[in-house]
Every structure is written in C-alpha cells, then in structure tokens.
C-alpha cells in the first residue's frame, strides 16, 4: 500500500506506516536527526528532526521521527520555521559540548560535526560561562570507554541495551543540564554486543578501547565483507589503512544482522594482522617455495590413489573447497575427502550461532561429509600415506587421540594462514591468503550466499588456497584446472552445481543471495522474540 504525500512541494508516493523521517531520507531529502535509529524504538528526544506540517489551522511544528505519514500529508523540511527549529535544537545540543574534536575518536564521522556544518553554522550566543560536566575517560566495560561530557543524551545506547540485548546496563541520572549517562550501580557494560553502542553513539561519548586513538577515521578505506566468526555471516565493513586493518564495522543488512555485530566478530580484526605466516615451511623451518612445491608434487604424483586423505575446511570459501573436491574427484578417491568441524560454542537468540565457522553450509552444498568412523578406522590402521589439509587448524580443537592418529601419517601438507607450534611435526606448510585478502563466497546458516572482497594486499606473493591447488593440479597435468582467480572458480562452480542459479560472481548482490536449502541447513532467524522491524524502507541511506 502506498500513499501520496508532499514534502517541500514535491509529490511523493511512499509506503503506508513509515514515518516522515524515513519518507524524506528515502527520497534523498536531507533531514537532520540524532536520536532516531531505524532498528531501535523511536524516542524523539533530540528534537532536531523538526518539520512543519500543513494543517487546518496553518503550519505546525512536529518531530519527523515520531509522526507517521498519512494520505495527503503536506510536509515542509526547509521552510524558515522548520529550519529555525532544527537549528535551535542543534544549538541546545552543542551548548555544553566540549570542543575536543582533535582528541575525539569520533571526529570525522560525528553527527554533531556533520550536522553543524550542514544545518548549523551559527555563532555562539552563550552569555554565561560554560558548564563542565566532567566524567571523562571512564572505563565502563571490558571494551567501552565513556566520556560523559561529550554525551548528547540521545539514549540510542540505552535503547540498544534495553531492546536488543535486553541487559539494561545503562541509564541517565540527574536532571536538566546535569543529566548524565552512566551504568547502573554494580553493572558493567559487558554484554556480548556492547561494541555496537560505540557505533550508534552519534558523538564520541562511547568509544571502543580497541580502536581508541589508533587511527583517525578519515584515513580508513572501507571494503564490503562478511564476518567469519560464526555461521550467521554478519555483513561487515573492513576498514584499513596502509594494509593494516584497524576495525570491523557492521554493514546494514535487514535480513541478517540489521546494523549489529557481536563483540567476538568485531574484535577478530587482530587476527587479520597478527601471527600470519608468509613463507612456506619445511618441518617448521622456512624453505624455498619452488623446491617445496616440486617436492610435494613428486609425493602427490607418487602416492597410490586410495592412500591420500583430504581435510576440507568450514573456514575456507566455497571456491577453495570446490577446487579441493574437484582434485579429489578427478585424481583420487572422493570418499577420502572429509571435513573436521570444531565443537559447538556459545549462542543466543540475537545473532550468535553455536557453529563457530562461516561456511559449514557450503560444505553441505558441496557434499563433503564430516570425518566418519570408517575413515577413523582406516587412520588407526595406518592406511593413509599423505594428508592434505586446507585451512583447517584441527590441532586447535580436535581430540588428542585424533590428532595423534593424524600426525602419524607420513607426509602431511597444510595450507594455512596463521603461525602455530605444531608446524615442526608437519612436513610442508604453505601460506595462503586470509579472508580479508581474497575474493570468495560463503553460505551462511540461513542460506544466504554472500561474497567477501579483498581489503588489503599485504602479501602479494602468496595466493588463495583455490589458486594454489589449481596451480599444483596444472603442474601435475590434470585437465580442468585452468583458473587464475577465485572469481573464475566461482563462475565455473555456479555452472557445475545445480543448486546455484547460474549467476556470475559480480552478480551476487552485496546483501547476499538467498538460496533455498533443505531445512537442516537453515538456522533460527536472528532477533527471535524481538520487535519486528516493519519500517525498513530505505536501503541506500547508511546510518552511523
């Protein structure tokens, strides 16, 4: 159902039930706002989204975020009355706000800065000395630092901990100009989603300890990607400068993560930078790549068809697993390609899922089974001579028994991204690109096919797992592995696998493509038991 309204004499057709603010922003009409957030209940306490409505008794001021559009509504956002109201509301917010933008981490993406430059530009008319609220640099949680002086009391963070995480740690105490944001006595802002409060804070009142003072935001370059810490596959921005990832920010996706991510995913940016391996290693010692590849090639060409075991990975992309499967199918026994999954972890009804890997459904789609009893029996009989492991750090989670029997295999070849102590036991370790450095696709537990993009190119000399295996297969003179990039691999994969709608890599939308799967692959929906979001209307407008 659409209804007809007029904003600034511009006739528009908008869906019924949305508010004026969404109607304006969705039609590229700028309107100042602070406290309104699309995925939080409306509070209407900043009063900056003032508009004028044409009524029977002339024009009247009202806030746009808490007024639903009705048929024939006539709205003015840029009339002199509305503009004066918006400007005055902003002036009140800025009255006691400290001008410490040079040391504030929010500077550059601060709504107060942006709105002053866009809608304010007034001279200060303060006649009395400034009121110093104090309360700077307060640690209120494991990851969060609160600056009470900078807070503009928009209550976005309070609504977030009340409505989304339902933990209610934050509140406002005192009255008037002494109103202060604080945590309740004995409570710390330590829920699993606390990092989101720093994103939705329109000013620098809540900042993340892990990002604090690390980098000014205007230096950061953004790349669309997907979180790899659980099977939910939350949408992310990878933000980097000079090949170092400084933070991961949630990217809006109404179907999957709205605008939230969990702390575990947010803090995983350190893993991209730290403890990477860059050089190929022979029993823990750095060795020349060319000679090692030759050696491995000889081993793989010499081994009997039945005596090679492959371990695919739920952390690897669809392309990587596809290439490994293709190699086993064409050359060796496909029954001996299995996957090893870690034990289930923490979960909740908001976003986090117990499967702590991003591409478990991808393994199901490619029909790669879990490690079965028959394979374990063969392992115990010392049947295998070669073990090929792709991006699966089984030494971190597999049982000691299983690890021991795996390490008894004569030749072990591992493709991996991060350094480990066990490399001394492993014959050949080859470095491959991590998820922030490559193109690839993942299928999340809800059945969304999503793509990751390279944000950094720190190690141009190393390649993706899929390309490494494809080149190895080319050297072994196996036909059908003429791939140069993972994008080509995906295009071949979508042609071969009947489950995909034969699309090409660049046609996958940035919000993911829903693939109908059988029910055992589908996880519970996010935000179960939460308020339904019915006002999702605009996609182009990004909230901070």
């Amino acid at each position: 159902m659409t209804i007809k309204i007029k904003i600034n004499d511009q006739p528009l057709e908008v869906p019924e039930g949305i508010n004026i603010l969404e109607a304006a922003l969705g039609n590229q009409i700028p309107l100042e706002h602070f406290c309104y957030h699309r995925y939080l209940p409306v509070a209407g306490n900043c009063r900056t989204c003032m508009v004028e409505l044409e009524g029977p008794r002339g024009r009247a001021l009202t806030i746009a975020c808490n007024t639903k559009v009705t048929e024939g509504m006539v709205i003015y956002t840029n009339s002199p009355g509305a503009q004066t109201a918006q400007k005055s509301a902003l002036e009140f917010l800025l009255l006691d706000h400290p001008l410490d933008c040079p040391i504030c981490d929010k500077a550059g993406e601060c709504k107060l800065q942006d709105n002053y430059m866009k809608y304010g530009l007034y001279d200060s008319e303060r006649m009395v000395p400034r009121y110093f609220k104090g309360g700077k640099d307060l640690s209120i949680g494991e990851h969060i630092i609160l600056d009470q002086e900078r807070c503009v009391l928009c209550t976005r963070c309070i609504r977030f901990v009340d409505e989304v995480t339902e933990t209610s740690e934050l509140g406002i105490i005192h009255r008037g100009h002494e109103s202060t944001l604080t945590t309740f006595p004995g409570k710390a802002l330590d829920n699993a989603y606390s990092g989101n409060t720093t994103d939705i804070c329109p000013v620098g009142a809540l900042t993340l300890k892990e990002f604090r003072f690390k980098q000014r935001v205007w230096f950061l370059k953004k790349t669309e990607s997907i979180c790899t810490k659980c099977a939910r596959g939350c949408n992310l921005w990878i933000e980097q400068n000079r090949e170092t990832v400084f933070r991961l920010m949630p990217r809006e996706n109404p179907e999957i993560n709205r605008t939230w991510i969990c702390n575990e995913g947010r803090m995983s940016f350190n893993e991209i930078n730290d403890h990477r391996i860059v050089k190929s290693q022979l029993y823990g010692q750095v060795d020349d790549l060319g000679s090692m590849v030759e050696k491995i090639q000889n081993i793989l060409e010499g081994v009997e068809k039945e005596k090679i075991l492959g371990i695919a990975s739920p952390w690897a992309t669809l392309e990587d697993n596809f290439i490994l499967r293709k190699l086993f199918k064409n050359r060796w026994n496909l029954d001996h390609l299995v996957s090893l999954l870690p034990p289930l972890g923490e979960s909740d009804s908001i976003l986090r899922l117990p499967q702590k890997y991003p591409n478990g459904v991808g393994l199901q789609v490619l029909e790669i089974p879990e490690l079965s009893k028959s394979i374990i029996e063969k392992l115990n009989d010392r049947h295998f001579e070669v073990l090929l492991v792709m991006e699966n750090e089984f030494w971190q989670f597999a049982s000691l028994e299983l690890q021991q029997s795996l390490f008894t295999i004569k030749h072990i070849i591992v493709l991996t991204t991060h350094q480990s102590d066990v490399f001394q036991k492993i014959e050949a370790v080859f470095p491959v690109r991590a998820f922030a450095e490559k193109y690839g696709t993942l299928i999340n537990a809800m059945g969304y096919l999503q793509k990751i993009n390279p944000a950094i190119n720190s190690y141009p000399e190393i390649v993706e797992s899929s390309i490494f295996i494809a080149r190895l297969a080319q050297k072994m003179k196996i036909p059908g592995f003429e791939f140069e990039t993972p994008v080509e691999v995906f295009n071949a994969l979508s042609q071969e696998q009947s489950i995909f709608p034969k699309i090409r890599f660049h046609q996958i939308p940035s919000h993911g493509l829903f693939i109908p799967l059988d029910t055992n692959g589908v996880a519970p929906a996010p935000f179960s038991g939460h308020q339904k979001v019915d006002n999702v209307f605009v996609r182009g407008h990004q909230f901070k």
Partner: protein
Amino acid sequence: MRVVQRPKPKLMQSLYFIDIFKGLMLTLRHVIRNILNPDQMMVVYFPEQKKELPPPTRGRHRLMKREDGSPRCTACMLCATVCPAECIHILAGESTDTAIEKYPERFDIDMLRCVYCGFCVEACPLDAIRMDVPEVTVANYSREKLVYHKEFLLNHHNEDYVKNYNPPRPVIETHGPLARP
C-alpha cells in the same frame, strides 16, 4: 621578404681588447677595495660564519612544549592529514592524565620528503608545531638520521636563537583540554 646583410664590425670592435680591459677594470677595482677594507667584504665564511636570517624565515620544524615540558601536541593528526608530502607519522598514545588524554608516543618527520609548505603549522589547532628554527643545513650522511623524532624536534634547537627571531606569540584561546578550569 627583404634580406638584410649582417653589418660588418669596425676595426676597434673586432679587436675586443678595449671591452675586455673595461671588464677587468671593474674586477680590479673590487679586488683593491677588498684588500684595503677587508671588514666590508660581502662574503660569509660558511660554515664557520652563519648569516643571520630575517625573522619571517621558514625554517625546520620544532615541537612546542607546555609549561610542564610535555609536548603540546595531542596527536590529532591534522598535520599528518594536510601534509601533501605525507612526511609526518604520528603514533598516538593514551595519557594517564585525563585532562590530556591523548599524546604523541611517536612524532616523526621525514625531512627528505618534507616540501616546507608550512601547511602543518597552519593546520595545528594547538600551535604545537612551528617552522621557525633557522637552519638551512638539513643534511646528513644517512636517510635514517634525516627522520627527525619527537625528542629531537622538542629539544634540539637553541631556545635563545629561536626566541630572538620569534617573540612569544599571544596564547591562542583554546577550547578543549587547555581551556579547562
């Protein structure tokens, strides 16, 4: 088109001697004058002698200090942002003093990249960096030594020398940390 013949030089002109002599007379006059009055010679025996540079000279950078001797810089990175040569590298650190909060752990200026544009001085909101050390010999034997670090920029200049040319400017009314009661 009219062809003009090159005029033939006269005898006196073609001999050159008179003109050469005229030129040498000027040189000779200076030689004699310098020998008689060596004090007025217009030569500076660099590097033993150094010329006094005029006050508005744009020299190399220095970092300003607060009254307690800590750097005034708050690592806001505005200078690093505006620098067209990308020669300023700052690593911000967290200060234990909540009134300061943020301070530069490292502040490096790569003098080999610097183009002396002075944008960093203009951009600084706290007057923490100035380009007024009257040094014209920014030279060294290795590239590494020409990356000036925080300690060097804070201390390695003659305070009197700088003061003579730059009388202290009136304190800029700052907001934020410095304006705190």
